[in-house]
């Protein structure tokens, strides 16, 4: 940053806005007092204990994990074959098909949520879990298609031809060559999908029910009613979990590589 006073100042300001609010949440989570104030009064872990004993949070956490795992698996199961068809098959209107699978990124999530609320929950009388599973899977499909597609596009198609030439059937070629090549892409897509589903608010808010409510929605509800450090403690726990995921991502594939797939 030397010799770049203006750029340096703007960059520092940017980091402050991105990071400092997170630090405030963490610091207030360790308060010994009763109020969500700054500076915190004393240091204790009591609010972490309370958050983990608070049944609605624990229940919602389990719901969120369940939904994230199932919708990620479903999105990969549907999305990876689509990627293969787009990247390796000769299908007409290829870019149109790809555009369709990426379009959930463009349409506002509230629109999708409301649409599924009307069609699936009201229209078809399905449970909120079914509606949420459909909604989250739709939301994750773009990652499954694009991120795995990016890793497949980098792979040499001749590798698959080589396998065929050596005597492998198309199915055998898929399992012994294509799938291993796709593995890093599937891993990135799965990781991004899991996090995206877990953190989602708009869909989870519109499609919730008394029986099934995700953690972010429960936390939003909670903060409307009571404004105490338990919410900061729960947030800090989520932060810790996210840091673990980030470290796993960095150690296995590298952060930038995983996120490289979102853009472009």
């Amino acid at each position, binding site marked *: 940053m030397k010799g770049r006073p203006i750029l340096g100042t703007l960059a520092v300001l940017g980091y402050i806005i991105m990071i400092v609010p997170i630090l405030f949440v963490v610091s207030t989570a360790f308060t010994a007092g009763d109020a969500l104030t700054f500076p915190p009064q004393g240091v204790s872990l009591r609010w972490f204990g309370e958050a983990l004993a608070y049944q609605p949070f624990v229940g919602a956490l389990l719901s969120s994990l369940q939904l994230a795992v199932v919708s990620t698996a479903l999105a990969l199961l549907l999305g990876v074959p689509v990627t293969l068809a787009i990247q*390796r098959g000769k299908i007409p209107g290829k870019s149109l098909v790809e555009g369709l699978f990426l379009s959930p990124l463009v349409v506002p999530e509230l629109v999708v949520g409301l*649409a599924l609320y009307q069609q699936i929950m009201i229209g078809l009388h399905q449970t909120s879990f079914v509606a949420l599973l459909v909604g989250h899977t739709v939301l994750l*499909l773009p990652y499954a298609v694009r991120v795995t597609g990016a890793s497949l596009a980098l792979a040499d198609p001749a590798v698959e031809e080589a396998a065929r030439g050596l005597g492998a059937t198309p199915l055998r070629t898929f399992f012994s060559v294509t799938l291993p090549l796709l593995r890093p892409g599937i891993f990135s897509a799965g990781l991004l999908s899991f996090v995206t589903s877990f953190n989602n608010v708009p869909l989870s808010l519109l499609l919730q029910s008394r029986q099934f409510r995700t953690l972010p929605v429960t936390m939003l509800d909670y903060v409307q009613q009571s404004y105490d450090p338990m919410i900061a403690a729960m947030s800090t726990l989520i932060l810790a979990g996210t840091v673990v995921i980030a470290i796993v991502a960095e150690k296995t594939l590298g952060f930038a590589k995983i996120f490289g797939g979102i853009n472009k």
Partner: protein
Amino acid sequence: MSRKPALLLIPGLVFILFGFAIPSAIMLLAPPSTDTADVFARFGAMLTDPYDLAIIWRTVRIGVIVTVACVVLGFPIAYLLARSTSRFAGMWLALAIFPLLLSNVVRTFGWLVILGSQGAFGQLLVVLGITDQPPQLLYTELAIVLGLIQLFLPLAVISCYSAVAQVDAGLDHAARGLGATKSQTLWKIVIPLSRPGILIAGTLVFAGATTAYTTPYLLGGSSQRMLSTQLFSYASVSVDWAAASATALMMTLLVFMVSGLSSLISRKAGVTS
């Protein structure tokens, strides 16, 4: 495998059509027990109703401010990191990207602590003797803007970073060697060449900021409604499908218009340069 690509496509295609495209189209144009005409009538009324217009205008205004701020703050981060030779550059980049993995709800709570009535910022002003009483910063447009900048800045950093990283650093050296100052090099070489990435950054941030729900809900409350919070209230509080569809239509059109405009600009730039 390439013989039957259509079979691979079918499950995904069915899912995205029936789980997304068709329901969304129905919701926007013909919601349950509502005439399409009612949706359009409500849409027309929004454009003349002062209350609705205020919400639309606030949404656009906030979207533009947040977009500009994210590019102005995000590009320098991206540029400095892309050109840095420090071994910590990777760590700083990870720090800028990491918030994308973190829940919006968690990220937004921070502002409650900072801007709330007993929050850090107000207390600081009192301690410094600038005001006697902590000012009301929560439930203001400023709060929403700050929250959204925090939310979308990482996205702007990634887009700008991949754009700047693609600009050969040798060009910077060449420009400097030909007598350009650092800032001339930045404005005449790096920025023009990374314009597509900056444009993508702007589009992503605008689309995100104008449709985000958590931030205006937590930081704007009911006094600072945006299209997203308004849509939610039509859908779940007043259960007015026509109004909800009209609002959703407005939001969708806004996002489509901006991304259409952005791809138009980048296409035009692609032709001339």
